[in-house]
Structure formats: C-alpha cells, structure tokens
C-alpha cells in the first residue's frame, strides 16, 4: 500500500491524483507520501459520524513539503491529542470505516483502507 500523490508536467502536486492538474497538465509521476512527515494545518473532532465511522472521529488536514512544493492530505488521526503545527506521519490502517455500512456498496470502487496520521 502506498499513499500516492501525483506530480504533473507543470510541476504541481496533488493528493489524491487526478487525470489533469488544476491547470490542465498531465501526470508525470507518482510520489509516495507514506514515508514522509507533514504538518497539521487544522483539525477537528467530529462526534456526529455517519454509519460505519468511529465516534469520535478526529480528522486533520496535513501539509507535506515535497522538494519545495507543498501538497496537502486529509485523514483521520491515531490520537485525539492533535494541535495545529504538529508533525505527523502516515500509518497504514486496513479498514478506515466499516465497508458497506453507509450508502456505498462494500464491493464497489470505494477503497476502505488507507492512512491515518500519527504524531511523530
């Protein structure tokens, strides 16, 4: 499992990747963010969660620096003890929310595994 961001031909990076960059450039390569550290930009603890989602659910937006270009990712955190400016790293989680309990089917295109952020 990797946490792939896309670098596009115009130099921009996004996570997740898209068929084109914000300015229409094609993808040039993938960059695995799972081995990187990033900084918490903001966070929240949600207590009104949808079916199949842990309660409470602390989420953070994390900014990574990749060779001077920034890219952000949203994800859950492994702890509720989060602060703006905190350094975190992604850790793999097999099931982020219970598959098929909500509106999306368990065996559809939706992926259910991924990364949460853990303070370094």
């Amino acid at each position, binding site marked *: 499992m990797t946490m792939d961001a896309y670098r596009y031909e115009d130099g921009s990076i996004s996570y997740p990747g898209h068929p084109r960059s914000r300015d229409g450039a094609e993808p040039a390569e993938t960059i695995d963010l799972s081995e990187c550290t990033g900084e918490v*930009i*903001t966070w929240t603890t949600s*207590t009104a969660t*949808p079916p199949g989602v842990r309660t409470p659910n602390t989420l953070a937006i994390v900014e990574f620096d990749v060779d001077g270009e920034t890219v*952000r990712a*949203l994800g859950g955190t492994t702890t509720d003890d989060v602060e703006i400016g905190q350094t975190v790293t992604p850790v793999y989680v097999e099931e982020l929310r219970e598959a098929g309990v909500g509106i999306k089917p368990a065996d559809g*295109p939706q992926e*259910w595994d991924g990364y949460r952020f853990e303070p370094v």
Partner: protein
Amino acid sequence: MSDSVAVLGGSMTKFGQRDAWICELLAEAGSACLADAGVPPDAVDHLYVSNMASGEFEGQTGVMNALAHDLGLVPAYSQRVDQTSASGGAGIYAAWQSIKSGASDMTLLVGGEKMTHRSTAESTDVIASITHPAEYKHGVTLPSFAGLTARLYLEQFDAPRESLAEVAVKNHENGVRNENAQFRTEITVEEALDSPIVADPLRLYDFCPVTDGSAALLFCPVAVAEEYTDDYAVLSGVGGATDTHVVHERDDPTTMNAVVDSSDRAFEMAGLEPDDIDVAELHDMFTILEFLQMEAVGFAEQGRAWEQAMDGWTRLDGDLPINPSGGLKSKGHPLGASGVAQGYEIYEQLVGEAGDRQVSADAGLACNVGGFGNCVTTAIMEARQ
C-alpha cells in the same frame, strides 16, 4: 434574446418535519406559487425541479415529470436540477437561461427535499457521498469540513468563538419572525456556547437542522410580468462557479473561491457592487459559512466579517441585514429547496411582502452553496423601477 427576466411570484411550504413526501411537498409549493402569481397551469412552458437526492432519500426518481403531471403542466418541458445543496440556486440559473434565451415565456421553478424520515447519521452519509472517495473513506462529513475551517479561521484571524455564536443567535431571532421556519425560538450566546460539540470547535447551534420542505418561484420576461401585476422583482444578475472537488486542495481553506467567482459574475451582469446590496440571504448551513461568504461576496474584508457580525451590522436593523428569513440555520435546510427559498425571501423583501422581517431594500442577493463551496450560484434581484 428576450428582455429582462422578472420574478412574478413565489411561495414556500412550512419547513420542518413534514408528513408529506417529496412529490406532495413539491406540488404544495408549486401550486401556491402559481396561485400567488395568478398564472394558469397551461401558461407554463418550462418546469425545473431542484432536488438533490430524492432517489437516495426516498427511492423516488423522476420527480420533475411527477410534478408536471400533478400540477397540470403537461406537456411543458421539465427538467430536474441537481447541484447538491446548491440545486435551488442552480434552478434559478436554469430558469433565467430559459427565459433569457427565449425558449420559455413562463418558467416555474420548484425546489424540495424530504429528509427527516431518515436518521441524522443516514442523512449525513447521503450528503457526505458528494465528497471525493479519498475523503469519504475517512468518514468526513460536511460538518467536519466546517469544524476544520472554523478552527483555522478563528486561529488565523484572531476571532473570538463568541462571534460564531452571534450568527446563530441572530438567525434564530430572525426565524422567530418567519412563520415557515423550522425553529422559531430565540437562543442566547451562552446556550450556543454550551451546546454539545458536533465538530470541534463547532457545536450544535452552529449547524442547520435536517429538514423537509419545498419552495417555488415563477419567472417570465418583464414584458409578460407587466400583463399580470406591478408587484414583481427583476432578476438582474446570476452567476455560477465551481471550486475543487477535494476541499483540502484549495490554496486557502478560508477563501470560498466559487463564491468569489459566482458573485463577481452576478455583480457584473447586474452592473452593481456589493455596496449596492440592501439585503442578502447567505448559505449558513454552518455559522462559519456566513463569515466566509460575507468576505467572498465582498461585504467584508477577509478575516473581518466576524467583527461586523459582533457589531450588529448584519442584524435586521443593521447596515446589511443578512438572512432575514432565519437562514438555513433557523428556517431549515431541505437541500434542493434552500436556494429557491433564499430567492423567495429576497423576492418577498423586494415586493414588500416580508411582514415582520421587512427591511428597506431595492436590491438583494442570494448565495447558494453546494458541498463545502464546491459549486455555488449567486442571484441578484432588484425591485421594479
């Protein structure tokens, strides 16, 4: 191209928990709107139905055809408009296009949603399904986007937490004056600050409720409106825009780019500036959104809307009354109906039929937001000169 577009009539149902299903709600508002304008069903050329998710909520699709039949509009052209929470505003845009292009001389727009028969968790999941799969798998919800952004806004602009509570207090106060609002009870800043946490730092009173309801507007060329009445408004500007699907990819999370773009387009079309607006309905699905839209539309400098809210600038007796209807916060948020109901409030203010919440207004603005600013429409109406 035909002449200017008039708003000839409007209506809304009682918002809240209703026994009626989606087709009944739509028919209630649509029928009342035609009656309000004194227009017979056979005069309607186009019918637009703003609705986000009747299939997901009720297993009922094809609502535009059902409504055309129920209101005796057959064989009028009908179309369902889905732009998530901005479906109502997108319906105003579609109705404007239909009249302005000359394709229709009488267009009925009805927005509606039936939600309260589902649990809050289920409704939250239906709405959260608009997010990117990379967001959805983390259990993100629209309220959690609001929590993430509110924390950043308060920190970045040194705004007190009480300023968000003031938005809720104001809009509840306005809702008391609106007989169709879901909540008609005043609250205090202390009650707002003591309510349960939903998405830290936001609490229960920072969020709109789950709602059933419907609203309608009737559009035609000004020349046709003159044949019916002197009491109409002119839809002088409309604009629509999108922002990124993935919310965290935006350069500045506290700037609603699609609001900036859509309102710029609407102002340009109307030939007006933010200072020309006398009353506004903003999409206060969450209290933080009222600040973000005030700043993006140009009613406040970035990071300063909270000061104007605390100074009373946005109250009914303030310099620019915002959400006199009670807003989504107090009036309720039946997804597809909300943008139409915003337009209905502006229409009522401009024709002088807003009752206890009437303000002095020659021009009004309605901003309808889908997702967390993912897609936005802005409409500007002016009183008949």
